[in-house]
């Protein structure tokens, strides 16, 4: 065992050249479509309430302000631009998520996020397909529904199964005592991660849609076939999750209720509660235009382009060498 510092980059020169080409492709794509590139803070005063995202706290002291959070996504700031009437916007930014490190994760990563005024989720999925397949040269994605995928690969109906049936299905991976405090959505996430995801996007890219309303996050929800469905989509290629998009929720009251529900979940699981971003909620009050938005992981897109399995191969300096 050696403690010699590693100074060399983790990615090859060829990988970093491809990264630069990818960025040029993205900028060309949006320039051609007349979408404005913007830059919003990566250091903000608020983090997110999302119970499954851990922000990284900053210790800023400037003016009368202290604290701060490295942003997990530029979503709230970008939506404030839309509310101010700036129209469709995109951004390439670094985002930060604590505790996420592995072959597919680095605590700091590159996110491409964009919002399209007047688009619904289906229109935005088509644009995601143009961008991703234009860069990768792949076939356009097929669309798979959450319910069907769970039935096919996890052998359970995510809408009709009782909590007990779901837990029992999870016993393939977790001991009963580990399952005792796992929520219904936690069980669904386990099945999605271990039973379903590895199968997604194998033959051709696949959009997953039709998420249960409990996993809507910031997407609007509608009733479809008697089920509450979130207008949310993800794209998978070779079992790798690439993006997450919504037909955006514009209702400020509903947004506040979801933030408060997140904080209740946080309280229950012993995570710190997060202060609500009142500036974001005020922008929704003023009026967010009808829009859809999506966040796409650029490091992962490059992994697929280069056919590599480890995110370290596309990062100049992954966190443990940064």
């Amino acid at each position, binding site marked *: 065992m050696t403690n010699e510092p590693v100074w060399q980059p983790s990615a090859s020169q060829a990988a970093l050249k491809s990264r630069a080409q990818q960025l040029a492709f993205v900028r060309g794509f949006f320039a051609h479509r007349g979408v404005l590139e913007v830059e919003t803070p990566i250091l903000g005063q608020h983090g997110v309430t*999302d119970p*499954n*995202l851990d922000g990284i706290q900053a210790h800023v002291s400037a003016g009368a302000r202290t604290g701060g959070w490295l942003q997990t996504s530029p979503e709230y700031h970008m939506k404030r631009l839309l509310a101010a009437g700036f129209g469709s916007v995109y951004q390439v930014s670094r985002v930060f998520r604590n*505790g*996420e*490190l*592995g*072959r*597919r*994760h680095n605590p700091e990563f590159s996110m491409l996020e964009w919002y399209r005024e007047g688009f619904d989720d289906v229109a935005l999925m088509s644009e995601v397909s143009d961008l991703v397949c234009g860069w990768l040269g792949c076939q356009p994605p097929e669309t798979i529904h959450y319910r069907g995928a769970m039935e096919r690969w996890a052998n359970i109906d995510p809408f009709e199964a009782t909590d007990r049936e779901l837990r029992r299905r999870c016993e393939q*991976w*977790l001991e009963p005592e*580990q399952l005792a405090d*796992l*929520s219904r*959505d*936690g069980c*669904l*996430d*386990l099945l*999605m*991660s*271990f039973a379903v*995801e590895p199968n997604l996007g194998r033959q051709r890219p696949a959009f997953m849609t039709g998420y249960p309303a409990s*996993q809507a*996050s910031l997407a609007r929800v509608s009733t479809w076939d008697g089920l509450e469905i979130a207008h949310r989509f*993800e794209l998978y290629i070779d079992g790798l*999750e690439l993006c*997450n998009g919504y037909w955006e929720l514009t209702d400020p009251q509903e947004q506040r209720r979801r933030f408060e529900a997140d904080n209740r979940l946080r309280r229950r699981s012993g995570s710190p509660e997060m202060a609500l971003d009142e500036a974001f909620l005020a922008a929704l009050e003023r009026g967010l235009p009808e829009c859809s938005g999506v966040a796409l992981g650029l490091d992962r897109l490059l992994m697929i382009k280069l056919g590599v399995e480890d995110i370290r191969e596309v990062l100049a300096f992954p966190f443990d060498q940064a």
Partner: protein
Amino acid sequence: MASYSTNEFRGGLKVLLDGDPCIILENEFVKPGKGQAFNRVKLRNLMTNRVWERTFKSGESLEAADVIDQDMEYLYTDGEFWHFMLTDGSFEQYPADAKAVGDTLKWLKEQDVYTVTLYNGAPLSVTPPNFVELEVVDTDPGMKGDTAQGGTKPATLSTGAVVNVPLFITIGEVLKVDTRSGEYVNRVKSS
């Protein structure tokens, strides 16, 4: 005793699982972008040597196992225990039982240095160095001049280990052997 949370998991970490000391071999972080995170962990149970695959919810923790590796010189056996001594100058001795010595028995030579893994202060396992040098005590008569031929024959070493050696090897020669594969490497020139 200290404990490790999932975000401290890494290869080589020694933890207690179901009461047994285990070493983490692999740790994979799995998380849907908007969902619950999990760690898929491969561990080897140091008591049974069996490899386990277990899943943990992010944030769960495991107790640290008091397991350390120490260099020790093999001294002697009294038939029930094999006695080892720390090489750090403390002369502290540790008796290892047959279970701890295990397959390393056939590579044990007095005064050689082994890695003894201690669990709660008692020997849990004994690992030989990758290469040992041992004398041939029995083998069929050598066939001098036959060095080019690829044939092999069994040879019994001073510790009782039997390895396949080239036909030209004779009794009394000292051989270098790879303990991981149990294969002959070369003759050691007698000084």
